[in-house]
């Protein structure tokens, strides 16, 4: 509730500034104009939202699979960890804005390059949090499992993997916000649909309110996705007391 009040207050300030400050509404539309655009352009926004949402969902799913697999490989083999950790960090320094068009040339205009870009951005926090969790499994627990004749795989399956799952989901929660930004850049690079594409089109057409409406939808989507992951975390790993987000 307090979050809604805060948002309302900020929107009120914005409305006041747009009305009293005399800013051209082609540069900064008032919230009321954005709300109007949200309503009048609802079909356009929805159609493009579905495209972007699909890209982000697939991208995060791919990042979860990739990030978890990476973390497990790095956990099982010290040499893999030593060899790949610097590369993983380096991969996060790749300027997505510049690489995105190259990926489009390489993978085509379809959903492929978008998912690839989102996955590349998002898998890193997932890998890091998962790897840390795998490393933090209680040493005494691992000893105990050895006296119970656990194989390496058995120890992973019964102790390490369940301990790492909540961490992977925490990583995904961190990744959600950048995933949405990544989707927009990916669409900028070459796309005929999606909210990023819509924003890119709306600005030169002086449909500033529409562009802002698309931004509002993107932000709302990021928030929804974050809470969806939070909910999934509580559902899948109810034994952990995750930090409350509500």
């Amino acid at each position, binding site marked *: 509730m307090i979050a809604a009040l805060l948002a309302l207050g900020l929107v009120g300030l914005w409305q006041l500034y747009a009305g009293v400050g005399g800013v051209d509404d082609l540069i900064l539309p008032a919230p009321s104009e954005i709300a109007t655009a949200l309503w009048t352009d609802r079909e356009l926004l929805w159609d493009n939202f579905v495209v972007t949402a699909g890209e982000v969902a697939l991208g995060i799913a791919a990042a979860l699979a990739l990030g978890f697999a990476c973390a497990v490989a790095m956990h099982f083999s010290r040499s893999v960890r030593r060899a790949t950790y610097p590369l993983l960090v380096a991969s996060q320094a790749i300027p997505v804005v510049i690489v995105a068009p190259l990926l489009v040339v390489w993978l085509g205009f379809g959903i492929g390059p978008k998912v690839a870009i989102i996955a590349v951005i998002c898998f890193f926090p997932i890998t890091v949090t998962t790897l840390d969790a795998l490393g933090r499994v*209680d040493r*005494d*627990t691992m*000893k*105990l*499992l*050895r*006296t*119970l*004749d*656990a*194989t390496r795989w*058995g120890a992973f399956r*019964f*102790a390490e993997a*369940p301990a790492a799952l909540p961490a992977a989901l925490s990583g995904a929660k961190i990744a959600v916000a950048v995933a949405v930004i990544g989707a927009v850049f990916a669409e900028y690079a070459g796309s005929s649909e999606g909210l990023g594409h819509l924003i890119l089109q709306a600005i030169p057409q002086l449909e500033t309110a529409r562009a802002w409406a698309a931004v509002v939808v993107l932000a709302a989507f990021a928030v929804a996705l974050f809470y969806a992951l939070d909910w999934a975390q509580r559902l899948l*790993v109810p*034994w*952990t007391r995750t930090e409350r987000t509500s």
Partner: protein
Amino acid sequence: MQTQTASPASPPAEPEHGAIRVDGVTRRFGAVTAIERLSLTVRAGEVVAVVGPSGCGKSTLLELVCGLAAPDAGRVEAGPAALMPQRDLLLPWASALDNAALGLRLRGASKAAARAAAAPVFAQFGLTGFERSRPAALSGGMRQRVAFLRTLLAGKPILCLDEPFAALDALSRAEMQAWLAEALAREPRTVLLVTHDVEEAVLLADRVAVMAPRPGRIVAEITVAPPRPRVATDPAIVALRSRAIEALAAGARGPDGAAP
């Protein structure tokens, strides 16, 4: 996997496997000598309590017997041993039943088979109705019972119990000691019980090994002859308890104080 129909007199599964022989063992951690030239023999089916002040190398001894560490000198010969650690270390995501059956799962049993094997023992340990509870929902005593069941169901002839009841209040501890005595009467195993509670040692064990610290070594072995079930107020038990405490005090004073 154990059938619970065994009579109290039935021998342990594999007598030759159930014996422990620790012979002149030294174990160092860097500059610190945790255990020095320690020797201890436990016959199959015997319950031996190891008492000593904290830091005298009791837990190290258990790790050596369980094969979790190798001695720097000397020999350790022991059959397959299951460890019950000081902290219960139950898996927080698994139900009480699945925690108890963990050893069976790790040896390849299906989920259903492992649960079916563990379920009948649950009743004997007063855990009926808590099969599906997660560890967080159990009391300290119940968690210890589940941890003990996990050790028991591992099916090893030797049980290494590391201060299993130290974290419990006096009442739960007495209750747990009764559970343990009953379980061992039903299904004898070789037990190496580490404790700092001398009374617990003389109530449960056939023999008490008294350790002294820095470096860890055994300074006295006391045979506990009175028949079971034993009560703490029995004069014979009280006398044995005093002997063990004297041996502990002598051990703490130095090597000269060692008594047979």
